[in-house]
């Protein structure tokens, strides 16, 4: 989902950066409050950021014959809320843009929007929706992480289609092409991310149950 450096026209680059900025500002505010009010949650916060670091570094082969990577933002979005997780996702993308020439500074706004912001908000929304519908906890976590991951890649495809509409078939034709690359490749990877998120959440709940229950009371107990 990394749009490469320089591959978005200037207007789009600026537009997506402006769109991402308020979410990051909100996230930074939440993050500082979180650390002030519950300083003991910083280890779990570190683990959530770490999870996004690992998952977005792993390029995994897919059935389409190309490789892509999960995003890892679902876990932190469920535990700390979507705005806070946006900040951690942004840090991951900045690291990759500066040190790996993966993504870029001019496309950082668009990539932040798709992965850190939309990914987090979709994951959080689905988790809360699943909880409200009384779905089994782990099923909600799985759906949240999987669909958050998949939506990120759909957004990337739409961002590219918006910037590069097909001369004949327009936005829709172009979107179909980008979705064919990103969204289809991502399906098995998104499922993997869902499974891994449930796995790590299980581990966190059985070893750091009290901490997790303080963050999300619904995740109290159960994971034995």
């Amino acid at each position, binding site marked *: *989902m*990394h*749009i*490469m*450096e*320089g*591959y978005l*026209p*200037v207007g789009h680059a600026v537009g997506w950066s402006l769109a991402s900025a308020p979410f990051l500002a909100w996230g930074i505010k939440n993050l500082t409050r979180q650390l002030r009010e519950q300083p003991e949650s910083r*280890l*779990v916060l*570190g*683990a959530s950021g*770490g*999870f996004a*670091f*690992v998952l*977005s*570094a792993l*390029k*995994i*082969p*897919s*059935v*389409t*014959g*190309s*490789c*892509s990577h999960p995003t*890892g933002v679902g876990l932190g979005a469920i535990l700390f809320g979507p705005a806070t997780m946006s900040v951690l996702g942004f840090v991951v993308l900045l*690291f990759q*843009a*500066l*040190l*790996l*020439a993966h993504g*870029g*500074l*001019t496309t950082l706004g668009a990539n932040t929007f798709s992965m850190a912001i939309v990914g987090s908000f979709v994951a959080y929304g689905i988790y809360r929706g699943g909880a409200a519908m009384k779905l089994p906890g782990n099923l909600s976590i799985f759906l949240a992480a999987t669909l958050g991951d998949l939506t990120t890649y759909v957004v*990337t495809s739409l961002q*590219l289609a918006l910037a*590069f509409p*097909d001369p004949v078939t327009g936005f829709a034709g172009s979107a179909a*092409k*980008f979705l064919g*690359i*990103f969204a289809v*490749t991502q399906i*098995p*990877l998104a*499922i*993997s991310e869902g*499974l891994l998120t449930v*796995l790590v959440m*299980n*581990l*966190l709940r059985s070893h*750091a149950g009290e*901490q997790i229950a303080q963050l999300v009371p619904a995740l109290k107990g159960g*994971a034995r």
Partner: protein
Amino acid sequence: MKKQNLLLLLGVIVLGLIPLFTVKPAHEGDEIFGGADGQAEGVITEIRPDYKPWFAPFWEPPSGEIESLLFGLQAAIGAGAVAFCLGYYRGRRSAAKPADAALG
């Protein structure tokens, strides 16, 4: 819980392995499992052959090896953070309840 975790891990491994066996290159010698990001770049060039990236990274890993080193480093840092957190709480709990620790 332990059994569920093993099944989850197994699922991830199987999902990653299937493509390695099912996907064959269209023509012999073709490279498969390239990055999706790079393919998107190809489509952009197809749609707008005249498009030139207007900004270049300040620094790029000088070789594929250095790039994989940095990706490996990124994964290691992340895994370290997750493991530190889990180890801290596990250790703290077994220190609080020595009997549990003895039982493993």
